[in-house]
């Protein structure tokens, strides 16, 4: 075996049964000591499936978007509450505690766009929500659960960035002021100071609309993907100015989603070319091309324990276990990574499948 090249990595397993394209994925729970996390998937047909990763089967189905595509899923940090956003212009708040699955609250969205919302926890029971606003280029900020509108972020009249495509609320550790990162239709990423309602900085990363980005607040670095053939890595300096560090060329255009793993070691992209690509986050070295799906990959998600899920138009969700998060902090990633070109499945150092038996 040692001589022959390792076969391209396979998914750990595949979840089937959504019966329509998968557009949103979110891992739920699974923090340390809580056992296996659950995986939530939102489908084109408007259903949210809750998957047990232990039995690999759907344990429940939530139907709250009247047959319209579910585009965003997010669980709130406290309690078993889930937010789901659908193309029926509704944002639903679900209570999932103790096997319940009922909508406890819902809100109307004002925008028909594709933009996914974002939340930021503020205190025990309060959280801030950012979602696309009434005007096509606006972002609306709300205080939840009271639903009081905080402000509407509207770009200056001469900027014309187009619609917001993706949003992320965050807060630097040093300051209590919430910040909003927004990717726009014209390919630019802007940093908003929510309390001052002004753009701190804006940088053009792509020539096509930004389809998805993820931001590492520790390293103050972010990565974004767009409809074009490149990934852009940008950073934020002390003066809160965004600047593009580098771009990474891809062989095929179209990145639907980008996610950085919680341990900030690797990142994964969902490609329109049916493939999931994995990169080293620090160096942006390509690590693997995961080809399994037979249609566009719409979304990727990482679990706290390192599992990667990818949802695709072929109605399947593939679950991958790559470079397992080791308990000691030393990075296992450097060394055995070869340069790759697209289509060539990269030979991966696969983690020993055999888990050592407990003594």
């Amino acid at each position: 075996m040692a001589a022959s090249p390792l076969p391209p990595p396979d998914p750990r397993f595949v979840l089937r049964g959504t019966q329509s394209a998968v557009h949103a994925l979110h891992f739920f729970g699974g923090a340390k000591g809580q056992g296996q996390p659950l995986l939530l998937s939102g489908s084109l047909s408007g259903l949210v499936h809750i998957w047990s990763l232990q039995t690999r089967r759907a344990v429940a189905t939530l139907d709250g978007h009247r047959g319209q595509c579910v585009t965003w899923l997010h669980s709130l940090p406290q309690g078993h509450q889930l937010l789901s956003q659908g193309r029926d212009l509704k944002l639903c708040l679900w209570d999932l505690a103790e096997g319940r699955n009922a909508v406890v609250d819902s809100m109307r969205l004002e925008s028909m766009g594709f933009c996914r919302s974002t939340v930021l926890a503020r205190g025990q029971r309060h959280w801030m929500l950012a979602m696309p606003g009434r005007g096509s280029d606006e972002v609306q900020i709300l205080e939840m659960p009271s639903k009081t509108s905080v402000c509407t972020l509207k770009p200056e009249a001469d900027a014309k960035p187009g619609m917001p495509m993706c949003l992320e609320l965050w807060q630097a550790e040093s300051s209590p002021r919430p910040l909003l990162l927004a990717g726009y239709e014209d390919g630019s990423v802007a940093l908003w100071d929510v309390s001052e309602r002004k753009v701190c900085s804006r940088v053009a990363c792509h020539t096509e609309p930004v389809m998805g980005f993820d931001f590492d607040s520790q390293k103050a670095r972010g990565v974004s993907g767009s409809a074009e053939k490149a990934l852009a890595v940008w950073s934020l300096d002390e003066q809160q100015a965004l600047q593009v560090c580098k771009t990474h060329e891809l062989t095929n255009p179209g990145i639907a989603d980008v996610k950085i793993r919680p341990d900030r070691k690797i990142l994964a992209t969902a490609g329109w070319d049916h493939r999931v690509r994995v990169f080293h986050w620090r160096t942006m070295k390509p690590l693997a091309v995961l080809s399994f799906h037979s249609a566009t990959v719409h979304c990727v998600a990482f679990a706290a324990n390192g599992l990667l899920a990818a949802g695709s138009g072929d109605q399947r969700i593939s679950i991958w276990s790559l470079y397992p998060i080791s308990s000691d902090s030393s990075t296992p990633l450097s060394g055995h990574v070869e340069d790759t070109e697209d289509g060539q499945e990269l030979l991966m150092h696969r983690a020993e499948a055999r888990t050592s038996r407990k003594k």
Partner: protein
Amino acid sequence: MAVFDTPEEAFGVLRPVCVQLTKTQTVENVERLQAQLRAVSDSALQELQQYVLFPLRFTLKTPAPKRERLVQSVVECLTFVLSSTCVKEQELLRELFSELSACLYSPGSQKPAAVSEELKLAVIRGLSTLMHSAYGDIILAFYEPSILPRLGFAVSLLLDLAEREKSKQIKIAALKCLQVLLFQCDCQDHPRSLDELEQKQLGDLFACFLPGISMALTRVITGDFKQGHGIVTSSLKIFYETVSFIMADEQLERIPQVQPKPAVEHRVAELVVHREAKWVKNTSDKLTLLIKKIIECVSVHPHWKVRLALIELVEALLLKCSQSLVGSAGPLLKALVGLVNDESPEVQAQCNRVLRRFADQKVVVGNRAFADILSENLHSLATSLPRLMNSQDDQGKFSTLSELLGYLKLLGPKVNFVLNSAAHLQRLSKALVQVLELDVTDIKIVEARRWHSDQLSASPETAAGQPWSQMQKRYFRFFTDERLFLLLQQVCRLLGFYGDLYLLVDHFMELYHESVVYRKQAAMILNELVAGAAGLEVENLHEKHIKTSPDELREIVTSILEEYTSQENWHLITCIESEEAGEELTVKQSGLRAITSGAHTCQVPSFPAFSKPSATICSMNGNIWQICIQLEGIGRFACALGKDFRLLLMSALYPVLEKAGDQTLLISQAATSAMMDICRACGYDSLRHLINQNSDYLVNGISLNLRHLSLHPHTPKVLEVMLWNSDASLLPLVADVVQDVLTTLDQFYDKRATSFVSVLHALLAALAQWFPDTGDLGQLQEQSAGEEGSHLSQRPATPEKGLENTTTAEDIEQFLLSYLREKDVADGNVSDFDNEEEEQSDPPKGGERDTGPDVEPPLPVQVQIAADVMERCIHLLSDKHLKIRLKVLDVLDLCVVVLQSHKNQLLPLAHRAWPPLVHRLTNDDPLAVLRAFKVLQTLGGKCGDFLRSRFCKDVLPKLAGSLVTQAPVSARAGPVYSHTLAFKLQLAVLQGLGPLCERLDLGEGDLNRVADACLIYLSAKQPVKLQEAARRVFLHLMKVDPDSTWFLLNELYCPEQFTPPHPSLHPVQLRGTTGQGNPYAANVLRLLQELQ
């Protein structure tokens, strides 16, 4: 019936006889006395006891030499008196005791006097009766140190009798009497139990007899087996009663260190034993020797009652003398555990009872010393086990293993002391592995083949009862006795139950990895360990023992499973050219359906034994067993985990199913029974249910493995088995995986087409079964009837066929309507008409059409699949392997069935499939020709118009032509001709043509062409089979156009003259000659008969 109730009366009667006896001491006088005594009541006799006894004792005491006969009758008479009265005086008791014992005294010798057996018996009985007749107080007072010499004499006398006498009766009586003397009598007359002080007194007293008694009894016990079990049993009883009384821990605890001054004379005092520590030590050492001797001899005693008594001995000694006899504990325990698996159920039960009692009272576990001894024993047994397993015969192995089992049972959780020593675990495991080695020389194991690929319908209920009973018998190299295997199984289970499971599993896993030589045995042991850990069929003697927790067990099982099903342990070579043989089988299975002649004989793919060295056979046999054992293990794990096993199904079910499709009989059987176990454990009613409920796991495995087909060549098999066993509810899942299959097929077009084609076959067969076209049932029946043969009686009475007597006005109307419709079709209005038809047959789709008239409703999934598959079939139709072509034709046939109501999909595909299909019909192996005809038939039923013209244009001329040109050849040919390809082709074409003509509803011209080509084959000169086939063609033609067929046949041979019904009509003269030499006569006659 006492006659004399009062002492006065009795005295009156007895006096003369007593006087008489005192005067003249003769046997007659004694008998007279005894006769009189019988008439005296007990109470009266009690009064006169002393008086009556006097002459008798006098007789005994008279110094003159006495005749034995007299002594005997005196003793008997005495016994009689004593048996009816009580001895109330201390003195009398002592004197009588001495006088009776003295009867057997021979001066100057240690041995009893050489007297008749009757006398001996009488004396023994007398003594026994005497002791019974003494009052309780008196008897206790009797046992004082001063009596020691006399008692000692009696005891040694009795022991001597028991040991040396020939008569069994005397021996038994002596032993009985001994029991009485030693206070062990179990009769009702001694209800009083002794208090502590009395016990101590007696113990002190008897202690001095202990050496004598124990040694003499040991000699008796270890004597000839033939002496009878009764003697040995009661000797054993006396032995342990005596020893356990004298050496009782309870008594010895209270013995003071300093001996109190005895209040007896010096000579006697020397005899008294003081049981202080040193004495105990000495005695115990000596007893240990005796006990060992006894155990050695008795544990193999042929009579079960003796062995039962041995268990009692062990129980009594271990319970009462655990400290004083600690040195004997080892052998005693060994004897006990050795009897755990005794052949007698009574002994077994008693043994288990004692073991349980020990466990309950913590005799072993609570007692450091015992636990140590047991561990020690187990240690030494483990050490010698490999050697013993090597050298002993089956019986020896059986007892050794029984012993091992007993130790494990007794030690319970403490077994870990032994297991924790690496050296001993090593030895134990080595011995187990060694003895479990399988005999892998049987070639049948390798040869046996599974015949049917879809035989998985059995439900767990059919294999009721013992879950593992249907397991194939195994042959071991080192033993043949079935019981030994069960014993080993028990040993392993107990180990798993009490032992540290992690430690054991790790150890045997290491052995499993270490070498192929150990692998099977290690797997067997692992299976049993897990079963044992779950407590399956394990008898727990230790109530407080905590079993391995389900979570831990699941974890362990998961890791073992992973190991079992890993690539290198699961995919072993079990036969030569597996792929080839497997394909041949499936071809035959479906091939038999189409072939009626004996042209194709079944060949068992027998193993070419001569061509391969036998080492390979052994290793293949070994591999088969290995897989079977691992499969059995999976079943057992399921039983061990119960419903918890459901979680493991995602990794376990796929490999098991893979093996269920294996062609080696043994493996597929083992896999099926493993699945049964899984069904039972996880609560599924049947295999179908199991597969159905878990097909998502299977599909996951299949789709992932398809990506690496070279590594997982059996993947298509699993899908096939899954398809045979699932239903329409799985369609979405199936559709998902079919895409993967087709993609992979496109990649591996050339190499692995065989296995894929059979998957496609299974898939389409399943689809056809899941989605039957309800409107077409009648047609299907008709078709099958057509295939059956040529019975015109089954002919459907359709109006078009023109049978005058059934024609009604409605029929005519119907005929005209359909004629108009056909005319319409002929004018080119095909598509509209078809669409209408489709809409009618598909009501649910109608609603959707309203919402979006421009958008075509999406095709049903099964139709899409069938279309995709048919697409591939078009390419594969011209594969270079006949087997594949045949299979593809079958698949094509099924595709057509599934697509029949979707003409828009079917027709273009049929159009594209036509050229290769024509090739199959006109230029291929006879088998393929036949199969292609079948496809044409199906196709003809579904899209007849489409096909008719093409058939007539492309195929018919060639076929007819070849039939005509070949006819003279076959007419002239000899018997060998039936083995040629040409013959088979002719036959195939003839067989295919008939049904097809009927199905396609050919026009007259084409029918004539068929008839012309076939007429020649009605000749008697043709081979019989061809004649038959030709006749069948005509039977079909008759169905289509009876009149013209009649005419045609009569043109050939006319059996009768037709006389016109009216003279004004011309007589009809047909061309057929009536001459004798007409070669067509026979066949035409038969056909015309059918037509009447």
